[in-house]
């Protein structure tokens, strides 16, 4: 079984912030939900409670950046761009303030439904000049997200996993790099975030069915290394499938599509993700299955790409990990 790490952000942030005096911890009434309650209690002089007022928080963070501080802004990802979008542009992105936007509960990792689910955040953030985007896919990436984010000369938006997080990798985020998880020659699979764990399960089943998978994991979504992707596209025979915890417009699927179109690559592409739809409230495994974001959906897509039934059954896919909605690792039922 994969190692599960509990609240990896909590310790990682505290360790990083303590070592860097110009890092400040900002929270918008979701302090324990973003795993910074311990930091608040132990380092109250470095913690700024800004309440449920995200528009002010964004411009306030810009002012702190103007004073030379590097605020880490903590809230659910969805609250970092939907309500305070104007402030995000004018106070943070345009002037390239070193504001670190730590967005928790990306996509369908929350059962909170439409209002809580950041499903178009990558698309929005990608189109903002000066913005960098990072996404965590495992505990090691969560543990290294603070250092990675704080290395950015400008604003950065991070999709951060919380609670009980699997450890899939043993090396920290290297900003700008792509993780090559397998180097097969039939089909290229590109994933990020929680989709990577699903793809790793599908990959094993597909390998047993005789399909050689080349699997890339992205933690740096912007800037995106299109040249590296071109090499991988050239290395597979049949095409590419993207799987993302996000709508299929403007995210990883679009990034791959743009690369293919920009360079005239003659390879088929299947984009998996939320298909021009909102999600609703439910458990992560339920939502991933319902919306076609899981290992089974990925296997089906590879079958479509190859135009061939592979005979991979449910039993062939590793057991789905179920998170209890109520767990000691979470601050509340979300």
């Amino acid at each position: 079984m994969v190692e599960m790490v509990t609240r990896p952000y909590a310790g990682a942030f505290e360790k990083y912030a303590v070592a860097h005096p110009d890092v400040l911890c900002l929270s918008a009434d979701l302090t324990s939900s973003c795993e910074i309650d311990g930091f608040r209690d132990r380092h109250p002089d470095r913690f700024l409670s800004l309440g449920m007022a995200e528009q002010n928080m964004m411009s306030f963070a810009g002012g702190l950046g103007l004073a030379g501080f590097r605020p880490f802004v903590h809230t659910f990802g969805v609250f970092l761009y939907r309500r305070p979008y104007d402030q995000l542009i004018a106070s943070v992105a345009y002037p390239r303030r070193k504001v670190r936007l730590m967005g928790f509960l990306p996509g369908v990792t929350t059962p909170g439904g439409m209002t809580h689910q950041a499903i178009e955040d990558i698309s929005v953030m990608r189109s903002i000049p000066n913005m960098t985007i990072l996404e965590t896919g495992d505990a090691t990436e969560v543990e290294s997200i603070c250092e990675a984010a704080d290395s950015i000369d400008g604003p950065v938006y991070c999709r951060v996993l919380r609670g009980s997080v699997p450890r899939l990798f043993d090396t920290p985020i290297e900003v700008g790099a792509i993780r090559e998880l397998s180097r097969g020659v039939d089909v290229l699979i590109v994933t990020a975030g929680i989709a990577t764990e699903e793809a790793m399960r599908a990959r094993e089943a597909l390998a047993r069915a005789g399909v050689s998978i080349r699997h890339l994991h992205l933690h740096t979504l912007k800037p995106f290394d299109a040249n590296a992707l071109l090499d991988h596209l050239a290395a597979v025979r049949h095409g590419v499938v993207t799987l993302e915890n996000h709508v299929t417009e403007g995210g990883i699927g679009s990034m791959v599509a743009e690369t293919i179109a920009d360079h005239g690559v003659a390879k088929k592409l299947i984009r998996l993700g939320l298909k021009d739809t909102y999600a609703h409230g439910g458990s992560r495994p339920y939502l991933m299955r319902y919306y076609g974001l899981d290992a089974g959906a990925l296997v089906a897509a590879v079958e479509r790409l190859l135009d061939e039934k592979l005979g991979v059954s449910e039993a062939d896919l590793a057991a789905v990990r179920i998170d209890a909605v109520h767990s000691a690792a979470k601050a509340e039922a979300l």
Partner: protein
Amino acid sequence: MINAKTTEEVALGIRRRVFEHSIRNNGGYLSQACSAADQLAWLYNEELRLGEPTLPMIPKSFAGVPSATNRDYHTGAGYNGPPEPQCDRLIIAPAHYALAAYATLIEVGRMAAEGLEMFNRDGSSVEMIGAEHSPGMEVHNGTLGIGLSTGAGLAWGRRRRGEPGRVWVFMSDGEIQEGQTWEAVQTAAYHGIDNLYAIVDVNGQQCDGAMSTVMGVGDIKAKFEVFGACAVEIDGHDVEAMRQAAKTSHPGKPLIIVAHTSPYRGMSPLKSRFPRLHYVRFKSERERAQMNSAIAAELGVAPIEYTP
């Protein structure tokens, strides 16, 4: 810098320059100069502790927006002097007051008069709606309501660093309609940010006309106080009242001066255009000529020569 003029002279100079510019260009943000000239003059000529300008008297051309590759980028804050710890910082929250703000820089010797000739010209940094790179500006405030939040964050950070310099925000009453203004006040009060100062030009005007006919905001001073600020209400054309208001003790709270003003102060013929004063464009050459002679007489200058 040594004051070469009285604050009253600076204020008159601001009105004259904005008037001249607006007559020549057949329109402009005239009413903002009428209501705010005395406040801007007082800030720059007396209240703000600013160092010598660090940017050329004649503004540089537009040199690109901030980006990872535009390494020479800088804001227009250098016209307010260097960001030294002991110096004050000024944020002009309503960026459409830029014309009046530029005129102020000229009047206090921080920008050459040629700067105003570049106003709203293609390729110029002296933009119509003050941009971050425009003279005297440090942040973008073209969308109203974000200036006080930025000032609060900057002030918190400066206090944290032990800098004695204050943060002043010049505001307008229209942005009081924005919820963010109240988020900012409650934040500054909650965190005791008392090195934050604001002066609000309450001219009762917004784009659609008189604020009372667009969205009434009630008792501004009382609202600021209930949200936790120390607020002082004054006649925004009374410089002595500004001097006294700024001395108000406000431990643990931001100080907000609510300055009631007239949008046609010093240019009374503009009253005929009330309540549509946000941006005055003359309706006919006849009106333009009438305004020219009448306002020029009130401002004590000869009528402006212009090409109809």
